[in-house]
């Protein structure tokens, strides 16, 4: 673990590249697949999640010596759900169009597994400043992951680029804008991302296996350290 007393800016980069929550840990797949029909939706979802993530991780970090270990998970969920409700109100008030586009998935931020995994594995053990960096890095990593998938799906599936429609002559493969497209695009983005990351970070050996067996379900449900899905945030 990096020296926990010092501010560690590399945590931001780690969340975006080396431990990108979507591409390497396969966390939070549901919002990733559901809202990325357009890049703007992906951006909105990413920012909303980052806001909840940063706020709740910060709070967990500040309270980490107060929260009793036995009931920490319910408290984490309570904190996360409260901030989610706040974000949902803000969106309803100021960005109603985005709120309608994202629909239920705003409410589902409350049980987003990235947030629970970060709170459990990083925030509850680290001081506030590094927690903030870690949360922002993970949030940006998630946001970028969504935007990239969103751009591809919008471009090929919807025939538009960042909301501007392409000429009619441009071929549209509508299936990419439908639910199956999310799976396909994610698969190929993961392949390219892994290649790219292995090439540029070959100095640091990474576990070659992605956590296929993991996912949301086990991010929270196995508190023990031997859970294969839980990433060892901050302990590398």
């Amino acid at each position, binding site marked *: 673990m990096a020296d926990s007393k010092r501010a560690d800016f590399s945590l931001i980069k780690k969340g975006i590249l080396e431990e990108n929550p979507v591409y390497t840990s396969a966390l939070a797949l549901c919002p990733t697949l559901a809202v990325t029909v357009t890049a703007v939706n992906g951006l909105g979802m990413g920012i909303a999640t980052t806001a909840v993530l940063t706020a709740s991780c910060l709070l967990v970090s500040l309270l980490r010596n107060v929260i009793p270990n036995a009931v920490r998970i319910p408290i984490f969920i309570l904190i996360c759900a409260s901030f989610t409700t706040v974000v949902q109100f803000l969106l309803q008030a100021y960005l109603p169009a985005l709120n309608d586009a994202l629909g239920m998935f705003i409410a589902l931020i409350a*049980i987003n597994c990235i947030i629970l995994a970060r709170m459990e594995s990083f925030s509850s053990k680290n001081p506030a400043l590094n927690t903030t960096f870690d949360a922002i890095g993970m949030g940006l990593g998630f946001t970028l992951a969504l935007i990239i998938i969103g751009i591809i799906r919008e471009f090929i599936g919807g025939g538009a680029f960042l909301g501007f429609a392409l000429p009619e002559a441009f071929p549209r493969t509508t299936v990419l804008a439908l639910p199956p497209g999310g799976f396909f695009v994610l698969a190929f983005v993961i392949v390219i991302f892994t290649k790219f990351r292995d090439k540029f970070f070959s100095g640091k050996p990474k576990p070659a296996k992605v956590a296929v067996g993991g996912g949301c379900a086990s991010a929270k449900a196995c508190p023990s350290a031997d859970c294969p899905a839980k990433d060892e945030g901050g302990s590398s």
Partner: protein
Amino acid sequence: MQLILVFLSAALVNNLVLARSLGVCPFIGVSKQLKASVGMGAAVTVVMVIASAATFAIFNLVLVPFDVVFLHIIVFIFLIAGLVQLIEMFLKKYVQPLHKALGIYLPLITTNCAVLGIVLLNIETFSDSILYTLAHGLGGGIGFTLALTLFAGIREKMEKNDSIPKALKGLPITMIVAGLMSIAFLGFAGMITL
């Protein structure tokens, strides 16, 4: 008749995993073995039906009369978590064999977005009828089980396949298979219009 349509629509046309992209994590995570996926599917179905009924009651008897609907996310999450605990304790005490079969999957359901998703959908669409709520919950659970079991069957076969390109091994090929299954389920679209 309408009830059957709601059930079929939740199970097939608007399949939770393949059409609504809910509960994808357990779908990817617990589909390595057919046996485990049946257990997970059964556990999710049971929790989904009971949670549908419980959230219906809480929503209409507590949240609406006291005008605290804005708390519904927090209340529902804790309701589901509590329910899962209760079901686990009940099974452990009275139905040992079932607890053995479903026990390890129950805690995983607490943060399953499929369950929270279906109860949120319930209050959006069917907040005035308990029967429709139950049909929707049951359909969602059966649909989840169906998708999970079919997917696990494919993945068990896939394990033995050596001709998958190296770059696609692991998560990517799993995603592609899930996408193909999702295309297959698109075929149900338009079959039932509510």
